[in-house]
């Protein structure tokens, strides 16, 4: 077992200001960044604020930026860094900071509320739902999401443009729209809710310029862009820009 001393720079402060503070801290074999943050807490900075929970990449609490890249701290092994490398840890830079590494992620919870929920099909009693595996698989991929909000953090639409936060739901919640639109039994359409159209009209799908940073940072390796956002854009095209599809639907409905 080998031990060394690493140089950490951790952002300390709150909404009124703050800065990167230097720490020298012991690192043992096999540790991850979150372990080092915890060691700082226990030995040098008892009040260092950080969110965490499962430590196994399953809850999505310990999101932060390590050397400028959005990451889960519990899934960032120290062995990927050189021993003399300075490791900089900051809070997510898209959301308002609360204190130290903790940010106010309420943006995401607000956006979650704006996506209309699953609409159960009428006349199908609990226990009578029948769905085939191939029909649920696409939505199941999106339901792997652990809501770490790293995709929301890295997305330049809101990261670099605060004013877009109002109009843009972000990758996580556009993916939620896609998930529901692909759900084999969702009855939104019967209730007069067009998810394809609302993706663009209500949730800001058009802001996405598919530069794929959301997919790059996803710790669950969900293909957000290719499997959710682009298909959703294509579905919006079906509704709004493709007269052939429109005509086809019209004819099919007649017959």
């Amino acid at each position, binding site marked *: 077992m080998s031990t060394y001393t690493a140089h950490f720079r951790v952002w300390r402060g709150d909404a009124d200001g703050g800065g990167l503070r230097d720490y020298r801290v012991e690192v043992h074999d096999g540790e991850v960044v979150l372990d080092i943050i915890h060691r700082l807490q226990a030995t040098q900075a008892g009040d260092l604020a950080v969110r965490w929970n499962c430590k196994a990449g399953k809850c999505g609490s310990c999101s932060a930026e390590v050397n400028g*890249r959005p990451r889960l701290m519990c899934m960032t092994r120290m062995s990927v860094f050189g021993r003399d490398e300075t490791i900089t840890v*900051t809070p997510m830079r898209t959301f*308002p900071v609360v204190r130290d590494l903790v940010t106010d992620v309420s943006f995401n919870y607000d956006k979650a509320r704006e996506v209309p929920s699953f609409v159960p099909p009428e006349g199908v009693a609990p226990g009578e739902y029948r769905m085939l595996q191939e029909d649920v698989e696409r939505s199941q991929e999106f339901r792997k999401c652990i809501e770490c909000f790293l995709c929301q953090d890295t997305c330049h639409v809101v*990261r670099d443009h605060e004013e877009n936060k109002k109009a843009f739901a972000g990758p996580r919640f556009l993916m939620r729209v896609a998930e529901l639109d692909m759900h084999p039994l969702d009855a939104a359409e019967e209730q007069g809710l067009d998810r394809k159209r609302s993706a663009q009209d209500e949730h800001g799908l058009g802001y996405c*310029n598919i530069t794929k*940073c959301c997919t790059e940072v996803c710790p669950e390796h969900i293909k957000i862009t290719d499997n959710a956002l682009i298909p959703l854009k294509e579905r919006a*095209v079906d509704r709004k820009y493709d007269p052939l599809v429109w005509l086809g639907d019209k004819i099919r409905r007649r017959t």
Partner: protein
Amino acid sequence: MATDTQPPAPPTPPAPPARHGVLSAGRAAIAARHLRTDRWWLQPLLTALGLSAFVVYSTWRAFANAYYYAEPYVSPFYSPCLGSNCVDMPLGARWPLFGEWWGLSPALLVLIFPLGFRLTCYYYRKAYYRGFWASPPACAVAEPHEKYTGETRFPLILQNIHRYFFYFAIPVALILTYDVVLAFRDEQGAWGHMGLGTLVLLVNIALIWAYTASCHSCRHIVGGRLRHFSKHPVRYRMWTWVGKLNSRHMLLAWLSLVSVALADLYVYLVASGAFDDPRFF
């Protein structure tokens, strides 16, 4: 090839006013616009260089209006040849639909379709938004622009017509396939021969088909738009198959871009007499 709708990016963007984006009030006070320590700029740089090289080459060749036919090979830039000013191409895809009034290079009449297809392609969009427009230059690296509306307005809202270019890309690819078939002749038009040029065109058309079939719009049309795969087993299988190709869309986009340029270059070299096409049989 993206530069005509995207203004060229200034090499060093002017610093935006403070308190913007990651520097906004309320966010963690960090002066640096990014803290990445890796070579994040390499990817957009390579992308920009690669695309620029192609744009320069293809612009030159498209306007050249010369050396695009060397029996039995026709350059993919000039097929089908729709102007009356095309060189004589026995049996080739030469349909002078545009009559006498078109005086410019006939390549321009045709290239608009593959150009539009690639310009609105989901991969190329990512590539040039990042490489040329720095929007964003790389993940978690602040972009230089003060305002951003994405693809919500004119002109970028037109990206939604990608599907139509996909529809057009199919006949174009069919004609190029026809060209490859014609390339199995010798200079005299006798069938059953093959040269290095045939191979070049064959590889090119294979890559073009792979790129076209791997298109996101294609994936949507063949099956992606369905809600119940189980009720459409054939389309489900096609969707699965296109999906596999689609996961390599970026690779195919680059390979087919290089191959089409090389195919044209090969025809140019043979037609200009700089190179003698080796015959296999």
